[in-house]
């Protein structure tokens, strides 16, 4: 019983949150439409949190994802403004993410800087670059092609159910599937878990720790860039700070998820629950007309309560 409480505390917290909102918003909360809305609202955070899970599996961090998201959005938007086609902008944005991520990986795994310091440094750098190339301005309006902002407004119609699944939601689910497969079912992922579990043991056993770490950071950079592009498409504009709020939330989501696994290691499906908790609280409390300030307090308190249940007596 207590065992289960520990293990499933966060999941129960999640269920409780759902039930609570359902009871208090009987008409509007538990509707397909609202859930599709939520799924779209959290899709960018989700993509970044999923790929953040990849480095956190190794016990590392990436604080630069928010800056990277802004930078990739800006990169794409600048190319659009100069008349390049949408595909070019998207590819360039993603490429920036990979390069930035690999640079993080280089600092962490080859130079040997603590991930926290390394990515704090690159957070500052990438944000500076985003400001520099955009001259600190927001790029929007005619400069952003309809085809690009249309991505966030399109969706897959399912006539049978009379719903339209937003394209951003589908994208996030795709990333979830990929990361899940990568981490749980490929040798690459298993080795990342080994590094996280015992770096020295992995190294002694001949796991190529440096190379794997490098690649993992590259993937996290790629995910951050994708999240940034999704965000830019959704707000049909790009500015050098728009991704910055995502970093702490993404890490929070992974940590929330970590409370759900027995040995406290990150799992991407658990990260999904973390992301949904954050998204639901925002959506539900706003619908319940809770004052914004009180909402903030409640979000903090509810997260702590959920985690507390699963931590109680864990040691």
């Amino acid at each position, binding site marked *: 019983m207590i065992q289960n409480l520990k293990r499933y505390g966060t999941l129960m917290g999640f269920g409780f949150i759902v039930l609570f909102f359902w009871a208090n918003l009987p008409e509007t909360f538990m509707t397909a439409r609202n859930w599709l809305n939520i799924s779209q609202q959290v899709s960018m955070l989700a993509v970044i949190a999923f790929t953040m899970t990849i480095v956190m599996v190794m016990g590392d961090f990436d604080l630069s994802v928010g800056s990277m998201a802004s930078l990739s959005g800006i990169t794409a938007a600048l190319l659009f403004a100069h008349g390049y086609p949408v595909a070019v902008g998207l590819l360039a944005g993603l490429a920036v993410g990979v390069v930035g991520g690999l640079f993080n990986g280089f600092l962490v795994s080859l130079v040997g800087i603590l991930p926290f310091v390394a990515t704090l440094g690159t957070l500052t750098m990438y944000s500076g670059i985003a400001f520099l190339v955009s001259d600190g*301005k927001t790029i929007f309006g005619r400069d952003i092609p309809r085809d690009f902002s249309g991505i966030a407004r399109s969706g897959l119609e399912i006539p049978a159910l009379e719903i339209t699944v937003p394209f951003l939601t589908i994208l996030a689910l795709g990333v979830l599937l990929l990361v899940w497969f990568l981490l749980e079912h490929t040798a690459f992922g298993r080795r990342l878990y080994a590094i996280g579990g015992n770096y020295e043991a992995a190294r002694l056993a001949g796991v190529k720790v440096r190379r794997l770490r490098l690649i993992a950071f590259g993937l996290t950079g790629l995910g951050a860039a994708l999240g940034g592009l999704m965000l830019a498409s959704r707000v049909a504009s790009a500015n050098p700070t*728009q991704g910055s709020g995502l970093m702490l939330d993404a890490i929070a989501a992974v940590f929330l998820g970590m409370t759900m696994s027995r040995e406290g290691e990150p799992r991407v499906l658990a990260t999904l629950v973390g992301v949904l908790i954050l998204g639901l609280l925002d959506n539900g409390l706003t619908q319940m007309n809770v004052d914004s300030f009180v909402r903030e307090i409640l979000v903090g308190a509810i997260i702590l309560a959920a985690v507390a249940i699963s931590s109680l007596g864990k040691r």
Partner: protein
Amino acid sequence: AQSKVVVITPYLAQPGTQFYVEGFSAAAQSNGWDLNVIDTAGDVAAVISRLEDAVNQNVDAIVINVDPAQVEAGLEVARDAGIPVVGMDSGTSPYLATNVTSNGYAMAVETSVYVADRIGGTGNVVMFVFDAFPPVQIRGVIADAVFGNYPDIAVLDRVTPDVSDGGIADSRAKMEAILAANPEPGSIAAVWAAWDQPALGALQAIEDAGRDNEGIVIVGIDANPQARDAIAAGGNFEASVAQDFVGIGNKTAEMVARLLAGETVKENVVYVPTMLITAANAAQ
């Protein structure tokens, strides 16, 4: 020698500030000043630090774009060193030679009265405010007063969005939730936003929810280019108030030039006119 002039602002990422600085830089160039623009990325305490640094370098004049009451410690240092400081959309203060700005009270009156008129003095209004920033706080207070004066206008929600991204994305998420909580057509009559980003976020939410045909009136303040585009498109976003940002920058440069020339400036506030932007004049 060349006059050294420093502009210090925490808000360079804001579009409005960029236009002030543009206007000011152009004038500075034609005056032949050695200009340094310093941004502290939202950090007000750092403005004091940079003021101290500027005084340490013996610049000839300083322009700030931040509430003077919060940086008095730095302004005092400048005054002791005899360096004139001019406010650019800043605030009145005994430490400033003068302050060049738009009339914030008037702007809020214009948009809130526009809303009240358009909805015939009756209906539910969603407000987006940000009281942590004094100039924006003023707007909210004025709008509260205007709506409070109409017995049939109810403020449905007074939302403070997360502004770390400028405010669009979070405002949109908040508006989506409010729309979901108020599904009947007509249950929301208007959205009043204290600046343009939340108005744009609300517009996106309303359009995506397919409720753009309910006649929800959206207004913002600042008339930034993105808002102008939206207003010109003729949708729910109907009005915003344009400050003459470039004009403020120009005017500030003019005041600085007068001070550098040794003139004393008597007026402690200089207002630069604003203009209500609607579909009729948005394209200009």
